[in-house]
């Protein structure tokens, strides 16, 4: 069989998913830690101060990657929710439920760092601006997914299917919420990076570098944390299967 096809099928079955991802955890964690340390040192000490905001802009190196992750992870949850709901794959359920708390944490971190930055810059911790509001609503979506799951904790399969449904509904609604809030009001500054050029966005490479490193670091941290959680999720939900007891006898 083609190697990629074989890998794909192996990742769909809980025992081999558990076995394969076990080898990935340590490298992912090391990568995440190294990149975080490098990115933070580079961002906090070596990147030049902003011409307008001085040094306080440096919170961006945490804020912006966290904001990217908060949306990226919800997208992952939505996609694995569709897979879990349509094909009833246990691994997709595990990935979905493992991602939710991490995503919620990144969302909370985004809001928190944004508020801390907002006080010296805008003179207020909170302003009902479009992006802050939709980030807050994103947090509610995360809480909804986790809430419906924990409400049905006596039957994990059913809980995961209902949570998947909630995640899909949220995924459909996200653009609607986003644009409705956008039309409603806005004072937030423009996007930090514009891929297509344009006038807004960071041009200075020494500022961009730590930002991109931190973005990578959060991705690796997410992968590490998600796989770790997904593995224990599978152990918990499959506890009566023979492969789980074999794991414990071997170790």
């Amino acid at each position, binding site marked *: 069989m083609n190697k990629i096809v074989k890998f794909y099928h192996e990742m769909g079955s809980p025992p081999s998913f558990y076995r394969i991802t076990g080898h990935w955890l340590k490298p992912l964690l090391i990568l995440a830690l190294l990149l975080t340390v490098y990115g933070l040192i580079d961002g906090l000490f070596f990147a030049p101060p902003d011409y307008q905001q001085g040094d306080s802009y440096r919170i961006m190196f945490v804020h912006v990657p966290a904001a990217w992750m908060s949306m990226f992870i919800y997208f992952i949850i939505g996609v694995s929710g569709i897979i879990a709901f349509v094909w009833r794959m246990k691994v997709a359920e595990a990935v979905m439920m493992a991602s939710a708390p991490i995503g919620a944490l990144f969302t909370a971190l985004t809001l928190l760092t944004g508020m801390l930055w907002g006080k010296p810059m805008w003179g207020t911790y909170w302003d009902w601006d479009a992006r802050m509001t939709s980030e807050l*609503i994103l947090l*509610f979506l995360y809480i*909804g997914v986790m809430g419906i799951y924990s409400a049905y904790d006596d039957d994990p399969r*059913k809980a995961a299917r*209902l949570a998947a449904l909630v995640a899909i509904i949220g995924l459909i*609604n996200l653009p*609607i*919420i986003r644009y*409705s809030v956008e039309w409603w009001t806005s004072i937030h500054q423009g996007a930090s990076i514009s891929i297509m050029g344009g006038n807004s966005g960071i041009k200075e490479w020494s500022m961009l570098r730590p930002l991109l490193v931190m973005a990578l670091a959060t991705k690796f941290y997410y992968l590490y944390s998600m796989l770790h959680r997904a593995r224990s999720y599978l152990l918990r939900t499959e506890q009566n299967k023979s492969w789980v007891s074999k794991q414990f006898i071997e170790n």
Partner: protein
Amino acid sequence: MRFWILLQRDVLVAWRKKSNIYQPLVFQLLIVTMFPLGLGAGAQTLQKIAPAVVWILALISTLITLENIFKDDYEDGSLALYTLSGMSLPVAVIAKAAAHWLTTGLPVIIFAPVIAVLLHLPASAYGILMLSLLIATPIFSLLGTVGSALIMNLKNGGMLLSVLIMPLLAPVLIFGAGAVLETTLGNTPVGHITLLAGCFVLSLTLAPLAAAAAIKVNLE
């Protein structure tokens, strides 16, 4: 055919237990009393917040009734019968939503001017207030069926239902209250109303499917 029977039955059940119908209205009246008490009774202050308060009250008073859309049917087994009868589940959901709208949405619309008078809403905005609620209350009922189907076999699902539904209702609130607000400021509300109508069409087509999927999972 079965759609009408189901609708008739649900309206009748709600009518027999009249507290279902007047409770949201009493709730609105109670809460609206709190605003002048807390804010001061100045007509100017109240006028400013009136579009939002009338709208949020309509929203919350509907929200507290959503939990029961499917609960009784689930508990006495009639929901299982709908699915066994071969009736299309999304159609059944639309019938439930229509019955819910007739027994809570419609009273809320009719009652809205009373709340608006208490808050000194400018006379020019009454028409748009009624129109926006007329488009939006069916959305509450339709999205409510999704939330209600998700939590129908939970004991205390009310709080969870609010968490699930509130993000979906945020755009509705923005466009609905926005339409009334624009009118009080002397602008045209056409944009908001059109977007609100778009939300209605979207929830009419998608919400019954989502609710039916949730019912199926819950009955498995």
